[in-house]
């Protein structure tokens, strides 16, 4: 389990990312647009009263920011799994899987690479939000780091698990359509009590069951220097289970790989 293997995998992802500046731009344009447009449109509709972790009345853009950070992680997690599906189609996955390292370690290296890219993008978006004058505690960039790292890992794991089941690029395009859904059914864009007030109980249930809600709340509390244990626990559990299931899925003895012939000759 050499560190060299880990570094090689991360290094390649960073190199590829650097070549694809359009990826960074598109990863940032979406949340920025939401931040600017939604906060302009909803600022006066959705005032957020004092609920933890907020100590005072806040404006909608301030409320949205942790949710948008979560979305940056979510999209990068999916992007990384798309890259892995692409690696499989281009054959690069074989190179990874025939490396003399335990398979779980190679997958972990892929996950670290995904998390690194996620966290980097989250910070860039944080800087963009600061430019737009969205308030955050001065220490937020520091207190956010552990939450962003865990969130990046967890959502990267979910993406990794997807690659076990979504085997082809074309199918993945369809899957990407649904990536936005977890954001709708979570506390990323509106607090849960707003939905409770509206009386749509089933949506409240979905929000409570949605792991992404916990990622967002973990980030939200961390931004204000507070540790929300339940959301950390749920995020870590989801990430770990998804990773373990992925390792199982990539095991040629047990998983999906090796069942079907490919390029038989």
């Amino acid at each position, binding site marked *: 389990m050499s560190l060299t293997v880990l570094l090689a995998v991360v290094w390649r992802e960073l190199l*590829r990312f650097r070549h694809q500046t359009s990826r960074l731009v598109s990863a940032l344009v979406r949340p920025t647009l939401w931040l600017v447009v939604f906060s302009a449109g909803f600022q006066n509709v959705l005032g957020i009263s004092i609920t933890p972790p907020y100590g005072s009345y806040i404006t909608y853009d301030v409320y949205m920011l942790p949710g948008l950070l979560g979305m940056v992680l979510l999209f990068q997690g999916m992007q990384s799994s798309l890259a892995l599906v692409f690696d499989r189609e281009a054959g*690069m996955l074989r190179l990874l899987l025939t490396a003399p390292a335990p398979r779980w370690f190679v997958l972990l290296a892929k996950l670290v690479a995904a998390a690194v890219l996620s966290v980097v993008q989250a910070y860039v978006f944080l800087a963009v939000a600061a430019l737009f004058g969205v308030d955050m505690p001065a220490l937020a960039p520091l207190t956010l780091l552990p939450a962003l790292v865990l969130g990046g890992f967890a959502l990267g794991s979910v993406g990794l698990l997807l690659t076990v089941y979504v085997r082809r690029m074309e199918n993945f395009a369809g899957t990407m359509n649904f990536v936005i859904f977890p954001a709708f059914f979570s506390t990323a864009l509106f607090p849960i009590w707003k939905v409770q007030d509206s009386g749509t109980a089933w949506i409240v249930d979905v929000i409570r069951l949605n792991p992404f809600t916990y990622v967002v709340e973990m980030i939200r509390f961390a931004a204000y220097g507070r540790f929300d244990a339940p959301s950390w626990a749920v995020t870590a559990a989801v990430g770990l289970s998804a990773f373990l299931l992925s390792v199982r899925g990539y095991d040629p*003895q047990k998983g999906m790989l090796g069942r079907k012939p490919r390029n038989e000759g």
Partner: protein
Amino acid sequence: MPAEMTAAAVAVAGLSKGYGRVKALDDVSFAVPTGSVTALLGLNGAGKTTLFQILTGLFVADAGRVSVFGDDIAAAPVRALGHMGIVFQQPVLDLDLTVRQNLAFHAGLHGLKRHRAAAAIAAGLARFRIGDLAARRVRELSGGTRRKVELARALVTSPRLLLLDEPSQGLDTRSRSELVADVFALAAERGTTVLWATHLVAEVAGADRVVVLHRGRVAADGTPAELIAAEGVDSLEAAFLAIARSGAAEAA
């Protein structure tokens, strides 16, 4: 003679693999002597690629064992893979990375430290006469050059065993003959054991041993001279065709 000199580099014993009702490999056994260039000849669909996928740990056999320098691929995959350099049938390169970056990535995957990797990469690029292309993106290179990059990559870790799965596929005549010359020169110089799967007999006419795979079974196994004599023909090509024909007749 020390044991490791006499032991087989690759020992395949009783290997079977099926996909549903189709048997891709049926009780396949053969050995690749250490230091030899062994050709694995077979028509399309003979089971060569399935065999390679099991050899490299990508697939698991239904029955049988494969050991590489004494390390079982199923029981000790990390050690077994550590002995190998692989050139896959389908080109496997990151097209957006440069030649050097592709090689460095591979060196890292095999745990080579940076300074050792740099030296090995420089030597590999020089051997295949592509040193001047090191900073070029793979996307810009021709198919023949890409194959050289893949060969150079497989050798960066100085493997004791080189696995080639139809490496000349898609190459023009000139690139193909260069590839053949490069591999045989390498085997002679370094004593690297080579297992070379192909359906093109001319490429492996100079091999030390030939294993003919037909419909998932070993149809012949011996030196080229032995195979030619056994079939009573005058060339390895004719011997291969005769073996394949009799195999087909048997099946019919």
